[in-house]
């Protein structure tokens, strides 16, 4: 039979869960009253969001002069935050799509929250593009629309326009992927709903899902194609974001390693953020049986791999700057490490290159406290990476007479804080009103990856259906 799994594999779902348990455990926080922890977290997020929104509106009202930008450093925290948030958004699609194609069962418990994280992270990223425009009401100028000035179109040769296409496509496809993944679970919530309002709302959003075999077959096929489409999309989005820099002639930006280096960095920071969110969720929603140490360890392995790739990329940049013989490039990199922003550079190196290497230790890799701490460190490091690339490259250009420093203002900082308020408000709303773990997908792995057989079985030889022989004895 199809459910035989090697006894050497550690169960992904613990606690001897049945299909009904999965529904019950995951639906609980959707159906019940908000918990105290959720209410406190949500209140803080909304307060931060309100403060941040006021600051963003003030930025728009007064103009970008309220930021610390100057003629030399024309991009700073805005684009740093944009690239950072886009990067964070990558883990969701990676977990959903690429790991689906690689048949990684551990993704099922974390894909839903990771996908939600992607959507909200991309919204945060887009908000910085709007802020950076200064006049967000003219944002539609970036779209290829015939406008009132005649037949003037956007410049399709510009990576900034590629960005518009890439990020809007990424957001749309990720949203569709996430929503399609929600359909079966929304139907579950609909069919369990006690109030008319819930039944109506979940009924409308579940689009009449009834779980017929024909629908499931088409659904799986569609999911696979969507995964196949999303996989190169993940790579394309951050490749194109990196081209915003790489196609320019600024020393420190004009490097061919940027596309793979940015993609690896994106996955690196994205997984760190997923770790942070999942570790909180598993405790607050009591999902330790679904998001187990195995899941945490698997994600830490990805963090170690991508962190190492990022580390190699840093060294490669240095090597190529020297090997190219271009004095401006060499200066840019030496200046990064020893110039006025040395602290940002070494913060980046410490957080991104050294800290993930601690995960080579199995004990650290499987420790919740270490994982949470190091994931925060990685996220800080990745923010510094974007800052180093953008600000340290810009603050020393070809003309020493125009050299300048960037100092963030209160609005630079507040607008960044706004994005946290927005992100966590959206994420907490998601966690309250939608199942944070994909119930339908978890049910598919429960036999092969759980501690016990979920139900007593009749009509099929028991020995054939062993999920884990060690644990199956007491069931028989």
């Amino acid at each position, binding site marked *: *039979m*199809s*459910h035989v799994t090697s006894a050497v594999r550690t169960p992904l779902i613990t606690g001897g869960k049945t*299909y*009904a348990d999965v*529904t019950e455990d995951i639906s609980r926080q959707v159906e019940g009253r908000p918990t105290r922890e959720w209410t406190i977290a949500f209140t803080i997020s909304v307060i931060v969001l309100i403060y941040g929104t006021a600051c963003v509106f003030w930025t728009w009202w007064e103009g970008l002069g309220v930021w610390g930008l100057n003629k030399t450093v024309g991009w700073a925290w805005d684009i740093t935050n944009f690239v950072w948030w886009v990067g964070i958004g990558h883990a969701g699609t990676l977990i959903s799509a690429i790991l689906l194609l690689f048949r990684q069962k551990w993704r099922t418990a974390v894909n839903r929250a990771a996908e939600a994280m992607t959507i909200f992270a991309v919204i945060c990223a887009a908000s910085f593009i709007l802020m950076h425009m200064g006049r967000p009401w003219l944002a539609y100028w970036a779209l290829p629309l015939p406008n009132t000035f005649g*037949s003037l*179109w956007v*410049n*399709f*040769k*510009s*990576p900034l*326009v*590629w960005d518009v*296409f*890439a990020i809007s*496509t990424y957001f*749309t*496809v990720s949203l*569709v992927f996430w929503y399609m993944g929600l359909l*079966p679970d929304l*139907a*579950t919530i609909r*069919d*369990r709903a006690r109030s008319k309002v819930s039944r109506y709302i979940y*009924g*409308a959003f579940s*689009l*009449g*899902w*009834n*779980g*017929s*075999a*024909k*629908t*499931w*077959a*088409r*659904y*799986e*096929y*569609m999911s696979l*194609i*969507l995964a196949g*489409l999303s996989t*190169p999309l993940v790579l*394309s989005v951050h490749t194109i974001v990196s081209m915003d820099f790489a196609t320019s002639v600024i020393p420190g930006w004009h490097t061919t390693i940027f596309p793979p280096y940015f993609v690896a960095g994106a996955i690196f920071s994205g997984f760190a953020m997923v770790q942070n969110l999942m570790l909180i969720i598993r405790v607050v929603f009591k999902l330790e049986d679904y998001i187990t140490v195995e899941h945490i360890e698997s994600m830490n392995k990805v963090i170690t791999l991508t962190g190492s790739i990022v580390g190699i990329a840093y060294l490669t940049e240095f090597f190529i700057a020297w090997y190219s013989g271009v004095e401006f490039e060499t200066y840019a990199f030496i200046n990064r490490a020893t110039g006025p922003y040395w602290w940002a550079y070494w913060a980046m190196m410490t957080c991104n290159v050294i800290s993930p290497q601690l995960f080579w230790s199995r004990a650290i890799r499987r420790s919740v406290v270490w994982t949470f701490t190091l994931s925060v460190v990685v996220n800080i490091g990745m923010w510094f990476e974007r800052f180093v690339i953008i600000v340290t490259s810009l603050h020393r250009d070809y003309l020493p007479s125009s050299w300048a420093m960037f100092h963030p203002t209160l609005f630079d900082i507040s607008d960044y804080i706004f994005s946290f308020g927005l992100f966590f408000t959206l994420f907490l709303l998601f966690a309250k009103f939608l199942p944070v773990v994909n*119930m*339908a*997908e978890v*049910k598919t792995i429960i*036999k092969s990856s759980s501690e016990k057989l979920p*139900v007593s*079985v*009749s*009509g*099929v030889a028991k020995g054939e*259906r062993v999920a884990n022989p060690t644990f199956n004895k007491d069931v028989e």
Partner: protein
Amino acid sequence: MSEINGNGKFLVGIYDDDDVVLKAVRDVKKAGVRIHEVYSPFPIHGLDVALGHPRTRLGIAAFLFGLTGTTLALLLTAYTESFDWPMIVGGKDSYSPIIYVPIFFELTVLICALGMVGTFLVSNGLGPTVKPLMYDLRTTDNKFAMAIDMSKNNLAEGDIERILKNSGAAEVNVKQF
């Protein structure tokens, strides 16, 4: 939904396990009963084949939508950059397809994904106002239901009930639509 025409009477076998229902499909079909559909809380691999459902053509739809996206991108860039407002930027030709690869790719993926999902929804009759026919509400939780359309079977109700029970059904219910 279009799957039910008029007032239909259904016998619904409820199963506790996905492997049992998969085996039951073969047994019930072998006993000469026409199965209307099987409902489950998660996908069961091989069930569509066992039921004799034709292979989905969503892949073809996806390909065609993707092709449409590429064509649209090609036309958009060619029209704007070569005919409507030719412009030389950074020394690049006004039209050189290689420059527009990111645009081609993104529009291909976008139209392909949206078109395929739209096709999926339409072909399954899914939409915000659709009221689903639920043979048993537990099929979105932990049970598996095999629906037998009595109007399409010549066997007596009792015989079908017995076949369902023999195939491993924990209970057999009557559902009228």
